[in-house]
Protein backbone atom coordinates (compact mmCIF):
# COMPACT_ATOMS: atom_id res chain seq x y z
CA UNK A 1 0.00 0.00 0.00
CA UNK A 2 1.03 3.59 -0.57
CA UNK A 3 3.31 4.83 2.19
CA UNK A 4 2.30 8.49 2.60
CA UNK A 5 5.24 9.29 4.87
CA UNK A 6 7.54 8.54 1.92
CA UNK A 7 5.58 10.88 -0.36
CA UNK A 8 5.45 13.79 2.08
CA UNK A 9 9.00 14.93 1.24
CA UNK A 10 8.25 14.85 -2.46
CA UNK A 11 5.09 16.91 -1.96
CA UNK A 12 7.09 19.53 -0.12
CA UNK A 13 9.53 19.69 -3.04
CA UNK A 14 6.65 20.07 -5.49
CA UNK A 15 5.14 22.96 -3.51
CA UNK A 16 8.56 24.64 -3.47
CA UNK A 17 8.86 24.39 -7.26
CA UNK A 18 5.35 25.77 -7.77
CA UNK A 19 6.19 28.73 -5.56
CA UNK A 20 9.41 29.45 -7.47
CA UNK A 21 7.56 29.34 -10.81
CA UNK A 22 4.94 31.77 -9.51
CA UNK A 23 7.02 34.92 -9.98
CA UNK A 24 7.75 34.21 -13.64
CA UNK A 25 4.13 33.33 -14.29
CA UNK A 26 3.00 36.65 -12.79
CA UNK A 27 5.27 38.50 -15.22
CA UNK A 28 3.86 36.50 -18.13
CA UNK A 29 0.32 37.16 -16.97
CA UNK A 30 0.98 40.91 -16.76
CA UNK A 31 2.30 40.82 -20.33
CA UNK A 32 -0.74 38.87 -21.53
CA UNK A 33 -3.16 41.27 -19.83
CA UNK A 34 -1.46 44.27 -21.46
CA UNK A 35 -2.02 42.62 -24.84
CA UNK A 36 -5.67 41.87 -24.09
CA UNK A 37 -6.46 45.55 -23.53
CA UNK A 38 -4.00 47.00 -26.07
CA UNK A 39 -6.06 49.33 -28.29
CA UNK A 40 -3.21 49.69 -30.80
CA UNK A 41 -3.34 45.98 -31.57
CA UNK A 42 -4.75 45.41 -35.09
CA UNK A 43 -7.63 43.06 -34.27
CA UNK A 44 -8.53 42.20 -37.87
CA UNK A 45 -4.93 41.33 -38.62
CA UNK A 46 -4.66 39.13 -35.54
CA UNK A 47 -7.95 37.48 -36.42
CA UNK A 48 -6.61 36.57 -39.88
CA UNK A 49 -3.34 35.39 -38.40
CA UNK A 50 -5.21 33.20 -35.90
CA UNK A 51 -7.23 31.68 -38.69
CA UNK A 52 -4.37 31.04 -41.11
CA UNK A 53 -1.22 30.29 -39.09
CA UNK A 54 0.35 26.88 -38.72
CA UNK A 55 0.92 26.47 -35.02
CA UNK A 56 1.93 23.62 -32.77
CA UNK A 57 -0.65 24.82 -30.21
CA UNK A 58 -4.42 25.25 -30.41
CA UNK A 59 -5.35 28.87 -31.15
CA UNK A 60 -8.80 30.32 -30.50
CA UNK A 61 -10.59 31.77 -33.51
CA UNK A 62 -11.41 35.41 -32.78
CA UNK A 63 -14.95 36.75 -33.10
CA UNK A 64 -15.33 39.75 -30.78
CA UNK A 65 -12.69 42.25 -29.59
CA UNK A 66 -10.42 40.65 -26.97
CA UNK A 67 -11.31 43.01 -24.13
CA UNK A 68 -15.07 42.60 -24.62
CA UNK A 69 -16.92 42.07 -21.35
CA UNK A 70 -20.68 41.73 -21.34
CA UNK A 71 -23.13 41.77 -18.47
CA UNK A 72 -25.86 39.21 -18.29
CA UNK A 73 -29.43 40.10 -19.27
CA UNK A 74 -32.17 39.47 -16.69
CA UNK A 75 -33.43 35.92 -16.43
CA UNK A 76 -36.97 35.38 -17.76
CA UNK A 77 -39.69 34.85 -15.13
CA UNK A 78 -40.47 31.31 -16.26
CA UNK A 79 -37.83 29.04 -17.69
CA UNK A 80 -36.62 25.45 -17.74
CA UNK A 81 -33.22 23.83 -17.45
CA UNK A 82 -32.49 20.30 -18.60
CA UNK A 83 -29.21 18.52 -17.95
CA UNK A 84 -27.72 15.05 -18.16
CA UNK A 85 -24.63 13.39 -16.80
CA UNK A 86 -23.44 9.82 -16.91
CA UNK A 87 -21.13 7.29 -15.39
CA UNK A 88 -20.25 3.75 -16.30
CA UNK A 89 -19.08 0.41 -14.99
CA UNK A 90 -16.50 -0.70 -17.51
CA UNK A 91 -16.06 -4.19 -18.88
CA UNK A 92 -14.17 -6.18 -16.24
CA UNK A 93 -11.82 -8.48 -18.09
CA UNK A 94 -11.35 -10.57 -14.96
CA UNK A 95 -15.03 -11.56 -14.97
CA UNK A 96 -16.58 -14.18 -17.20
CA UNK A 97 -19.64 -12.14 -18.19
CA UNK A 98 -18.65 -9.53 -20.75
CA UNK A 99 -20.80 -6.49 -20.15
CA UNK A 100 -20.71 -2.83 -19.20
CA UNK A 101 -23.23 -0.51 -17.64
CA UNK A 102 -24.02 3.11 -18.42
CA UNK A 103 -26.04 5.08 -15.88
CA UNK A 104 -27.50 8.37 -17.10
CA UNK A 105 -28.78 11.01 -14.68
CA UNK A 106 -31.53 13.17 -16.18
CA UNK A 107 -32.69 16.43 -14.65
CA UNK A 108 -35.37 18.89 -15.56
CA UNK A 109 -35.92 21.94 -13.42
CA UNK A 110 -38.80 24.36 -14.12
CA UNK A 111 -38.58 27.75 -12.45
CA UNK A 112 -41.10 30.55 -12.09
CA UNK A 113 -44.87 30.37 -11.59
CA UNK A 114 -45.02 26.58 -11.51
CA UNK A 115 -41.74 25.34 -10.08
CA UNK A 116 -41.21 21.64 -10.66
CA UNK A 117 -38.35 19.18 -10.62
CA UNK A 118 -37.81 15.89 -12.39
CA UNK A 119 -34.82 13.83 -11.25
CA UNK A 120 -34.17 10.34 -12.52
CA UNK A 121 -31.43 7.87 -13.26
CA UNK A 122 -31.65 5.39 -16.09
CA UNK A 123 -29.19 2.50 -15.99
CA UNK A 124 -28.59 0.41 -19.10
CA UNK A 125 -26.71 -2.86 -19.10
CA UNK A 126 -25.00 -3.58 -22.41
CA UNK A 127 -24.03 -7.15 -23.17
CA UNK A 128 -25.10 -7.59 -26.81
CA UNK A 129 -22.57 -7.76 -29.61
CA UNK A 130 -24.07 -4.56 -31.01
CA UNK A 131 -23.20 -2.77 -27.78
CA UNK A 132 -19.87 -4.41 -27.08
CA UNK A 133 -18.25 -3.65 -30.42
CA UNK A 134 -18.59 -1.00 -33.10
CA UNK A 135 -18.34 -2.72 -36.46
CA UNK A 136 -18.44 -1.80 -40.12
CA UNK A 137 -18.97 -5.37 -41.26
CA UNK A 138 -15.34 -6.25 -41.87
CA UNK A 139 -13.62 -4.59 -38.93
CA UNK A 140 -14.62 -4.03 -35.34
CA UNK A 141 -13.54 -1.90 -32.41
CA UNK A 142 -14.18 -3.09 -28.86
CA UNK A 143 -16.15 -0.64 -26.70
CA UNK A 144 -14.31 -0.34 -23.39
CA UNK A 145 -12.08 2.10 -21.52
CA UNK A 146 -11.63 5.38 -23.37
CA UNK A 147 -14.10 4.44 -26.10
CA UNK A 148 -16.76 3.62 -23.51
CA UNK A 149 -16.21 7.10 -22.08
CA UNK A 150 -17.00 8.57 -25.47
CA UNK A 151 -20.02 6.33 -25.95
CA UNK A 152 -21.30 7.52 -22.59
CA UNK A 153 -20.95 11.17 -23.68
CA UNK A 154 -22.96 10.33 -26.78
CA UNK A 155 -25.65 8.68 -24.64
CA UNK A 156 -25.78 11.73 -22.38
CA UNK A 157 -26.44 13.88 -25.45
CA UNK A 158 -29.10 11.48 -26.77
CA UNK A 159 -31.00 11.70 -23.50
CA UNK A 160 -30.67 15.47 -23.52
CA UNK A 161 -32.13 15.68 -27.03
CA UNK A 162 -34.98 13.40 -25.93
CA UNK A 163 -35.75 15.64 -22.96
CA UNK A 164 -35.48 18.78 -25.11
CA UNK A 165 -38.28 17.45 -27.32
CA UNK A 166 -40.58 17.36 -24.28
CA UNK A 167 -40.04 20.99 -23.27
CA UNK A 168 -42.80 23.58 -23.56
CA UNK A 169 -42.50 25.35 -26.90
CA UNK A 170 -42.95 28.88 -25.57
CA UNK A 171 -40.85 28.50 -22.42
CA UNK A 172 -37.26 29.82 -22.52
CA UNK A 173 -35.08 26.76 -21.94
CA UNK A 174 -31.46 25.75 -21.75
CA UNK A 175 -30.01 22.27 -22.22
CA UNK A 176 -26.76 21.80 -20.31
CA UNK A 177 -24.02 19.27 -21.00
CA UNK A 178 -21.29 18.55 -18.48
CA UNK A 179 -17.78 19.25 -19.79
CA UNK A 180 -16.89 20.00 -23.36
CA UNK A 181 -19.02 19.98 -26.51
CA UNK A 182 -15.90 18.71 -28.25
CA UNK A 183 -15.50 14.94 -28.02
CA UNK A 184 -11.79 15.20 -27.26
CA UNK A 185 -11.58 11.49 -26.62
CA UNK A 186 -12.22 10.81 -30.29
CA UNK A 187 -9.68 13.40 -31.35
CA UNK A 188 -6.86 12.25 -29.11
CA UNK A 189 -6.53 8.74 -30.52
CA UNK A 190 -6.39 7.47 -34.03
CA UNK A 191 -9.73 5.74 -34.24
CA UNK A 192 -10.81 4.19 -37.55
CA UNK A 193 -13.22 6.30 -39.63
CA UNK A 194 -16.19 3.99 -39.04
CA UNK A 195 -15.86 4.48 -35.27
CA UNK A 196 -15.80 8.27 -35.65
CA UNK A 197 -18.77 8.07 -38.00
CA UNK A 198 -20.78 5.90 -35.63
CA UNK A 199 -20.14 7.90 -32.46
CA UNK A 200 -19.81 11.40 -33.82
CA UNK A 201 -21.74 11.77 -37.10
CA UNK A 202 -24.52 9.29 -36.37
CA UNK A 203 -24.39 9.83 -32.61
CA UNK A 204 -23.38 13.12 -31.02
CA UNK A 205 -23.83 15.36 -34.07
CA UNK A 206 -27.18 13.81 -34.91
CA UNK A 207 -28.42 14.71 -31.41
CA UNK A 208 -27.18 18.26 -31.92
CA UNK A 209 -29.07 18.29 -35.25
CA UNK A 210 -32.24 17.25 -33.43
CA UNK A 211 -31.82 20.03 -30.90
CA UNK A 212 -31.08 22.58 -33.62
CA UNK A 213 -34.35 21.64 -35.33
CA UNK A 214 -36.22 22.28 -32.07
CA UNK A 215 -34.38 25.54 -31.49
CA UNK A 216 -35.46 27.05 -34.81
CA UNK A 217 -38.88 28.16 -33.66
CA UNK A 218 -38.48 28.52 -29.91
CA UNK A 219 -36.34 30.19 -27.24
CA UNK A 220 -34.18 27.13 -26.69
CA UNK A 221 -30.39 27.01 -26.43
CA UNK A 222 -27.74 24.40 -25.76
CA UNK A 223 -24.46 24.85 -23.89
CA UNK A 224 -21.82 22.83 -22.13
CA UNK A 225 -20.16 23.90 -18.89
CA UNK A 226 -16.54 23.44 -17.91
CA UNK A 227 -15.58 24.26 -14.35
CA UNK A 228 -11.95 25.30 -13.64
CA UNK A 229 -10.94 25.11 -17.33
CA UNK A 230 -7.28 24.55 -18.11
CA UNK A 231 -7.52 25.64 -21.72
CA UNK A 232 -5.11 28.13 -23.27
CA UNK A 233 -6.76 28.82 -26.67
CA UNK A 234 -7.03 32.57 -26.00
CA UNK A 235 -3.53 32.88 -24.51
CA UNK A 236 -2.29 31.07 -27.61
CA UNK A 237 -3.95 33.74 -29.77
CA UNK A 238 -1.86 36.26 -27.80
CA UNK A 239 1.21 34.23 -28.68
CA UNK A 240 0.42 35.11 -32.29
CA UNK A 241 0.33 38.79 -31.38
CA UNK A 242 3.88 38.36 -30.06
CA UNK A 243 5.03 36.33 -33.04
CA UNK A 244 7.21 38.54 -35.27
CA UNK A 245 6.20 36.78 -38.50
CA UNK A 246 3.26 37.78 -40.72
CA UNK A 247 1.83 34.30 -40.46
CA UNK A 248 3.13 31.98 -37.79
CA UNK A 249 4.65 28.65 -38.78
CA UNK A 250 6.05 27.24 -35.56
CA UNK A 251 7.91 24.31 -37.08
CA UNK A 252 9.44 26.41 -39.84
CA UNK A 253 10.51 29.48 -37.85
CA UNK A 254 10.98 28.21 -34.31
CA UNK A 255 11.44 24.46 -34.72
CA UNK A 256 15.08 24.70 -33.67
CA UNK A 257 14.57 27.14 -30.77
CA UNK A 258 14.26 25.69 -27.28
CA UNK A 259 10.88 25.98 -25.60
CA UNK A 260 10.99 28.98 -23.29
CA UNK A 261 13.23 31.00 -25.64
CA UNK A 262 10.72 31.62 -28.46
CA UNK A 263 9.35 35.19 -28.81
CA UNK A 264 5.85 34.01 -27.94
CA UNK A 265 7.00 32.38 -24.70
CA UNK A 266 6.59 35.77 -22.99
CA UNK A 267 3.06 34.58 -22.16
CA UNK A 268 3.96 30.93 -21.49
CA UNK A 269 2.39 29.21 -18.51
CA UNK A 270 -0.64 31.53 -18.44
CA UNK A 271 -4.07 29.96 -18.75
CA UNK A 272 -7.18 31.58 -20.21
CA UNK A 273 -8.87 31.60 -16.83
CA UNK A 274 -6.04 33.71 -15.36
CA UNK A 275 -6.71 36.37 -18.00
CA UNK A 276 -10.45 36.54 -17.44
CA UNK A 277 -10.20 36.42 -13.66
CA UNK A 278 -8.57 39.84 -14.09
CA UNK A 279 -10.65 41.24 -16.95
CA UNK A 280 -14.20 40.31 -16.03
CA UNK A 281 -16.48 41.57 -13.28
CA UNK A 282 -18.71 39.16 -11.37
CA UNK A 283 -21.29 37.60 -13.72
CA UNK A 284 -19.82 39.05 -16.91
CA UNK A 285 -18.96 36.97 -19.95
CA UNK A 286 -15.88 37.37 -22.10
CA UNK A 287 -15.73 37.88 -25.85
CA UNK A 288 -16.84 34.97 -28.01
CA UNK A 289 -14.20 32.72 -29.48
CA UNK A 290 -14.33 29.71 -31.78
CA UNK A 291 -12.56 26.40 -31.40
CA UNK A 292 -10.14 25.61 -34.21
CA UNK A 293 -9.50 22.03 -33.20
CA UNK A 294 -9.24 19.56 -36.03
CA UNK A 295 -12.16 17.46 -34.89
CA UNK A 296 -14.46 20.50 -34.83
CA UNK A 297 -13.30 21.74 -38.24
CA UNK A 298 -13.80 18.37 -39.85
CA UNK A 299 -16.95 17.12 -38.19
CA UNK A 300 -19.05 19.73 -36.44
CA UNK A 301 -20.40 21.67 -39.45
CA UNK A 302 -23.24 23.97 -38.38
CA UNK A 303 -22.55 23.07 -34.75
CA UNK A 304 -19.04 24.59 -34.90
CA UNK A 305 -18.02 25.05 -31.28
CA UNK A 306 -17.86 28.63 -29.95
CA UNK A 307 -17.06 29.48 -26.36
CA UNK A 308 -16.87 32.24 -23.82
CA UNK A 309 -15.62 32.53 -20.28
CA UNK A 310 -17.83 33.64 -17.44
CA UNK A 311 -16.82 35.06 -14.07
CA UNK A 312 -18.43 33.59 -10.99
CA UNK A 313 -17.82 34.45 -7.38
CA UNK A 314 -15.11 31.85 -6.90
CA UNK A 315 -13.96 30.85 -10.35
CA UNK A 316 -13.88 31.35 -14.09
CA UNK A 317 -15.99 28.88 -16.05
CA UNK A 318 -15.85 28.07 -19.73
CA UNK A 319 -19.17 27.80 -21.56
CA UNK A 320 -19.17 26.12 -24.97
CA UNK A 321 -22.02 26.64 -27.42
CA UNK A 322 -22.73 25.54 -30.98
CA UNK A 323 -22.53 28.15 -33.75
CA UNK A 324 -26.33 28.46 -33.96
CA UNK A 325 -26.46 29.68 -30.37
CA UNK A 326 -23.43 31.95 -30.77
CA UNK A 327 -24.85 33.71 -33.83
CA UNK A 328 -28.30 34.31 -32.40
CA UNK A 329 -28.09 37.25 -29.98
CA UNK A 330 -31.24 36.20 -28.11
CA UNK A 331 -30.06 32.62 -27.62
CA UNK A 332 -26.58 33.77 -26.61
CA UNK A 333 -28.02 36.20 -24.06
CA UNK A 334 -30.35 33.52 -22.72
CA UNK A 335 -27.48 31.04 -22.38
CA UNK A 336 -25.37 33.53 -20.46
CA UNK A 337 -28.23 34.55 -18.15
CA UNK A 338 -29.48 31.05 -17.40
CA UNK A 339 -26.02 29.54 -16.94
CA UNK A 340 -25.12 32.31 -14.51
CA UNK A 341 -28.42 31.87 -12.69
CA UNK A 342 -27.82 28.12 -12.43
CA UNK A 343 -24.39 28.72 -10.91
CA UNK A 344 -25.83 31.15 -8.38
CA UNK A 345 -28.55 28.68 -7.41
CA UNK A 346 -26.01 25.86 -7.17
CA UNK A 347 -23.45 27.47 -4.85
CA UNK A 348 -21.06 28.18 -7.74
CA UNK A 349 -21.79 25.19 -9.99
CA UNK A 350 -24.89 24.74 -12.17
CA UNK A 351 -27.58 23.24 -9.92
CA UNK A 352 -28.96 21.02 -12.68
CA UNK A 353 -25.53 19.57 -13.46
CA UNK A 354 -24.83 18.91 -9.79
CA UNK A 355 -28.10 17.00 -9.50
CA UNK A 356 -27.48 15.15 -12.77
CA UNK A 357 -24.16 14.03 -11.36
CA UNK A 358 -25.82 12.87 -8.14
CA UNK A 359 -28.27 10.81 -10.18
CA UNK A 360 -25.58 9.35 -12.42
CA UNK A 361 -22.84 8.58 -9.94
CA UNK A 362 -21.90 4.94 -9.35
CA UNK A 363 -20.00 4.62 -6.08
CA UNK A 364 -17.35 2.03 -5.32
CA UNK A 365 -19.73 0.06 -3.09
CA UNK A 366 -22.43 -0.04 -5.78
CA UNK A 367 -19.85 -1.20 -8.34
CA UNK A 368 -19.04 -4.16 -6.10
CA UNK A 369 -22.72 -4.89 -5.51
CA UNK A 370 -23.26 -4.88 -9.27
CA UNK A 371 -20.50 -7.43 -9.86
CA UNK A 372 -21.84 -9.57 -7.02
CA UNK A 373 -25.34 -9.43 -8.47
CA UNK A 374 -24.06 -10.59 -11.85
CA UNK A 375 -22.23 -13.46 -10.17
CA UNK A 376 -25.21 -14.46 -8.01
CA UNK A 377 -27.66 -14.47 -10.91
CA UNK A 378 -25.28 -16.46 -13.08
CA UNK A 379 -24.64 -18.99 -10.34
CA UNK A 380 -28.41 -19.30 -9.80
CA UNK A 381 -28.71 -20.36 -13.41
CA UNK A 382 -25.84 -22.83 -12.94
CA UNK A 383 -23.64 -21.00 -15.39
CA UNK A 384 -19.98 -21.75 -14.94
CA UNK A 385 -18.26 -18.84 -13.24
CA UNK A 386 -14.77 -18.54 -14.57
CA UNK A 387 -13.13 -15.59 -12.85
CA UNK A 388 -9.46 -14.75 -12.93
CA UNK A 389 -7.09 -15.68 -10.16
CA UNK A 390 -6.04 -12.04 -9.99
CA UNK A 391 -9.59 -10.93 -9.28
CA UNK A 392 -10.01 -13.59 -6.56
CA UNK A 393 -6.69 -12.62 -5.04
CA UNK A 394 -7.83 -9.00 -4.72
CA UNK A 395 -11.11 -9.99 -3.10
CA UNK A 396 -9.62 -12.45 -0.63
CA UNK A 397 -6.54 -10.90 0.89
CA UNK A 398 -4.31 -12.97 3.10
CA UNK A 399 -1.05 -12.61 4.93
Amino acid at each position, binding site marked *: MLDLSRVAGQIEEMVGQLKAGGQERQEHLARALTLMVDRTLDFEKLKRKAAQSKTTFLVAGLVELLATHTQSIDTPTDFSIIATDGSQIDVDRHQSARCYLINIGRIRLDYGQN*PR*AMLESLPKLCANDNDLVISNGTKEQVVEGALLNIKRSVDECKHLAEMAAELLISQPSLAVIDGSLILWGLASKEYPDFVVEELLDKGFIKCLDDMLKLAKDRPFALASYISFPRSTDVVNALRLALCPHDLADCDKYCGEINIGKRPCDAVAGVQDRDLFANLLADGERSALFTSQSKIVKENYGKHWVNFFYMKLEDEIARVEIPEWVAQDAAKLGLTHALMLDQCRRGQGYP*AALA*EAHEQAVVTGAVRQNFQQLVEILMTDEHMLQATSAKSRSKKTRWV
Partner: protein
Amino acid sequence: MKTQSERLGEIIEVSTTGFTAQCYELYELPPLGSLVKTTEGDIELYAVVYQATTEGLEPGRKPIARGKDEASEEAIFQSSPQLAKLLRSEFSALVVGHKDGDKILQYLPPRPARIHSFVHACMPGEIKAFSQAFGFLNILVNAELETPSDELIAAVLRLMSTMHEDSRAFLVGTGKELAALLGQDYAKLKAVLERIKP
Protein backbone atom coordinates in the same frame (compact mmCIF):
# COMPACT_ATOMS: atom_id res chain seq x y z
CA MET B 1 -65.75 13.42 6.59
CA LYS B 2 -63.55 11.13 4.51
CA THR B 3 -65.01 7.70 3.83
CA GLN B 4 -61.74 6.18 2.68
CA SER B 5 -58.70 6.15 4.89
CA GLU B 6 -55.77 8.19 3.65
CA ARG B 7 -52.64 6.41 2.45
CA LEU B 8 -49.81 7.90 4.49
CA GLY B 9 -46.75 6.11 3.22
CA GLU B 10 -44.93 2.88 2.66
CA ILE B 11 -42.99 0.66 5.04
CA ILE B 12 -39.22 0.74 4.57
CA GLU B 13 -38.09 -0.88 7.84
CA VAL B 14 -39.93 -3.41 9.92
CA SER B 15 -39.66 -5.57 13.03
CA THR B 16 -41.97 -7.54 15.29
CA THR B 17 -42.75 -4.53 17.45
CA GLY B 18 -42.94 -1.72 14.93
CA PHE B 19 -42.15 -0.26 11.53
CA THR B 20 -40.86 2.84 9.80
CA ALA B 21 -42.64 4.24 6.77
CA GLN B 22 -41.64 6.85 4.20
CA CYS B 23 -44.24 9.48 3.33
CA TYR B 24 -45.11 9.98 -0.34
CA GLU B 25 -45.03 13.75 0.06
CA LEU B 26 -42.53 15.76 2.05
CA TYR B 27 -43.80 16.76 5.51
CA GLU B 28 -47.14 14.94 5.10
CA LEU B 29 -46.66 13.19 8.39
CA PRO B 30 -49.37 11.73 10.63
CA PRO B 31 -49.52 13.42 14.06
CA LEU B 32 -47.67 12.05 17.07
CA GLY B 33 -49.80 9.44 18.84
CA SER B 34 -52.17 8.84 15.92
CA LEU B 35 -53.45 5.34 15.17
CA VAL B 36 -52.37 3.94 11.79
CA LYS B 37 -52.82 0.56 10.15
CA THR B 38 -51.20 -1.76 7.66
CA THR B 39 -51.85 -5.33 6.57
CA GLU B 40 -49.95 -8.61 6.67
CA GLY B 41 -51.91 -11.19 4.73
CA ASP B 42 -55.44 -11.27 6.18
CA ILE B 43 -54.40 -9.56 9.37
CA GLU B 44 -54.69 -5.83 9.89
CA LEU B 45 -52.00 -4.38 12.14
CA TYR B 46 -52.65 -1.32 14.31
CA ALA B 47 -49.82 0.94 15.40
CA VAL B 48 -49.32 4.34 17.00
CA VAL B 49 -46.95 6.93 15.54
CA TYR B 50 -44.18 7.67 18.03
CA GLN B 51 -41.48 9.34 15.95
CA ALA B 52 -41.18 11.41 12.77
CA THR B 53 -38.10 12.66 10.93
CA THR B 54 -37.30 14.65 7.81
CA GLU B 55 -33.80 14.48 6.39
CA GLY B 56 -31.75 14.24 3.18
CA LEU B 57 -32.59 11.30 0.97
CA GLU B 58 -28.98 10.21 0.79
CA PRO B 59 -26.96 9.79 3.96
CA GLY B 60 -23.96 11.64 2.50
CA ARG B 61 -25.88 14.77 1.48
CA LYS B 62 -26.77 17.08 4.32
CA PRO B 63 -29.20 19.92 3.71
CA ILE B 64 -27.58 23.37 3.88
CA ALA B 65 -29.06 26.75 4.82
CA ARG B 66 -30.36 28.41 1.63
CA GLY B 67 -32.72 31.14 2.69
CA LYS B 68 -30.40 34.04 3.50
CA ASP B 69 -31.62 36.07 0.52
CA GLU B 70 -35.11 34.59 0.25
CA ALA B 71 -38.25 36.35 1.44
CA SER B 72 -40.06 33.26 2.68
CA GLU B 73 -39.53 29.56 3.34
CA GLU B 74 -41.73 28.81 0.36
CA ALA B 75 -39.42 30.89 -1.83
CA ILE B 76 -36.54 28.56 -0.99
CA PHE B 77 -38.42 25.65 -2.54
CA GLN B 78 -39.41 27.79 -5.53
CA SER B 79 -35.81 28.78 -6.24
CA SER B 80 -34.65 25.17 -5.94
CA PRO B 81 -37.58 23.00 -6.99
CA GLN B 82 -35.44 19.87 -6.73
CA LEU B 83 -35.30 20.18 -2.92
CA ALA B 84 -38.65 18.53 -2.31
CA LYS B 85 -37.33 15.46 -4.14
CA LEU B 86 -34.06 15.32 -2.24
CA LEU B 87 -35.60 15.31 1.23
CA ARG B 88 -37.81 12.67 2.75
CA SER B 89 -40.16 12.46 5.68
CA GLU B 90 -40.45 9.23 7.64
CA PHE B 91 -42.43 8.14 10.64
CA SER B 92 -42.07 5.21 12.98
CA ALA B 93 -44.97 3.43 14.60
CA LEU B 94 -45.24 0.97 17.46
CA VAL B 95 -47.52 -2.01 16.87
CA VAL B 96 -50.22 -2.01 19.57
CA GLY B 97 -52.61 -4.65 18.28
CA HIS B 98 -54.19 -6.33 15.31
CA LYS B 99 -57.46 -7.41 13.84
CA ASP B 100 -58.01 -11.04 12.92
CA GLY B 101 -61.35 -11.41 11.18
CA ASP B 102 -63.70 -9.27 13.25
CA LYS B 103 -61.75 -9.56 16.45
CA ILE B 104 -59.58 -6.69 17.67
CA LEU B 105 -56.70 -8.07 19.70
CA GLN B 106 -54.57 -5.71 21.75
CA TYR B 107 -51.35 -7.68 21.65
CA LEU B 108 -48.63 -8.28 19.05
CA PRO B 109 -49.59 -10.10 15.84
CA PRO B 110 -47.86 -13.39 14.91
CA ARG B 111 -45.86 -11.85 12.08
CA PRO B 112 -44.61 -8.35 11.39
CA ALA B 113 -45.72 -6.32 8.39
CA ARG B 114 -43.77 -6.46 5.14
CA ILE B 115 -41.46 -3.97 3.47
CA HIS B 116 -43.37 -1.80 0.94
CA SER B 117 -46.73 -2.44 2.63
CA PHE B 118 -48.89 0.67 2.57
CA VAL B 119 -49.68 2.48 5.80
CA HIS B 120 -53.12 4.10 6.14
CA ALA B 121 -54.56 6.47 8.69
CA CYS B 122 -57.32 4.85 10.77
CA MET B 123 -60.84 6.19 10.32
CA PRO B 124 -62.63 7.68 13.36
CA GLY B 125 -64.86 4.58 13.59
CA GLU B 126 -61.84 2.30 13.66
CA ILE B 127 -60.13 4.38 16.33
CA LYS B 128 -63.27 4.31 18.45
CA ALA B 129 -63.63 0.54 18.03
CA PHE B 130 -59.98 -0.04 18.84
CA SER B 131 -60.06 2.09 21.99
CA GLN B 132 -63.00 0.27 23.54
CA ALA B 133 -60.44 -1.80 25.43
CA PHE B 134 -57.28 -0.48 27.11
CA GLY B 135 -54.89 -3.42 26.66
CA PHE B 136 -52.74 -1.33 24.28
CA LEU B 137 -51.71 0.87 27.21
CA ASN B 138 -49.57 -1.94 28.58
CA ILE B 139 -47.59 -2.05 25.32
CA LEU B 140 -47.12 1.73 25.40
CA VAL B 141 -46.03 1.75 29.02
CA ASN B 142 -43.42 -0.96 28.46
CA ALA B 143 -42.00 0.24 25.13
CA GLU B 144 -38.49 1.66 25.10
CA LEU B 145 -38.56 4.38 22.47
CA GLU B 146 -36.72 7.59 21.63
CA THR B 147 -39.88 9.53 22.44
CA PRO B 148 -40.56 9.72 26.22
CA SER B 149 -43.41 7.31 26.99
CA ASP B 150 -45.40 9.86 29.04
CA GLU B 151 -45.48 12.21 26.03
CA LEU B 152 -46.49 9.41 23.69
CA ILE B 153 -49.20 7.94 25.94
CA ALA B 154 -50.70 11.38 26.54
CA ALA B 155 -50.71 12.15 22.79
CA VAL B 156 -52.42 8.83 22.00
CA LEU B 157 -55.11 9.36 24.64
CA ARG B 158 -55.79 12.97 23.66
CA LEU B 159 -56.40 11.93 20.06
CA MET B 160 -58.46 8.86 20.95
CA SER B 161 -60.63 10.75 23.43
CA THR B 162 -61.89 13.05 20.65
CA MET B 163 -63.45 10.00 18.94
CA HIS B 164 -65.63 9.21 21.95
CA GLU B 165 -68.90 11.06 22.62
CA ASP B 166 -68.02 11.11 26.31
CA SER B 167 -64.33 11.92 26.06
CA ARG B 168 -64.14 12.61 29.80
CA ALA B 169 -65.36 9.14 30.67
CA PHE B 170 -62.81 7.72 28.22
CA LEU B 171 -59.99 9.67 29.87
CA VAL B 172 -61.10 8.67 33.36
CA GLY B 173 -61.20 5.03 32.29
CA THR B 174 -57.76 5.08 30.74
CA GLY B 175 -56.45 7.10 33.70
CA LYS B 176 -57.52 4.32 36.07
CA GLU B 177 -55.90 1.70 33.85
CA LEU B 178 -52.68 3.74 33.83
CA ALA B 179 -52.78 4.13 37.60
CA ALA B 180 -52.74 0.35 37.87
CA LEU B 181 -49.95 -0.02 35.30
CA LEU B 182 -47.79 2.81 36.63
CA GLY B 183 -48.38 2.23 40.34
CA GLN B 184 -44.62 1.97 40.92
CA ASP B 185 -43.85 5.13 38.91
CA TYR B 186 -45.86 7.97 40.36
CA ALA B 187 -43.81 10.66 38.58
CA LYS B 188 -44.62 9.21 35.17
CA LEU B 189 -48.30 8.73 36.00
CA LYS B 190 -48.49 12.35 37.13
CA ALA B 191 -46.76 13.49 33.93
CA VAL B 192 -49.27 11.60 31.75
CA LEU B 193 -52.32 12.77 33.71
CA GLU B 194 -51.19 16.39 33.53
CA ARG B 195 -50.90 16.08 29.76
CA ILE B 196 -54.40 14.69 29.22
CA LYS B 197 -56.30 17.03 31.47
CA PRO B 198 -59.35 18.27 29.57
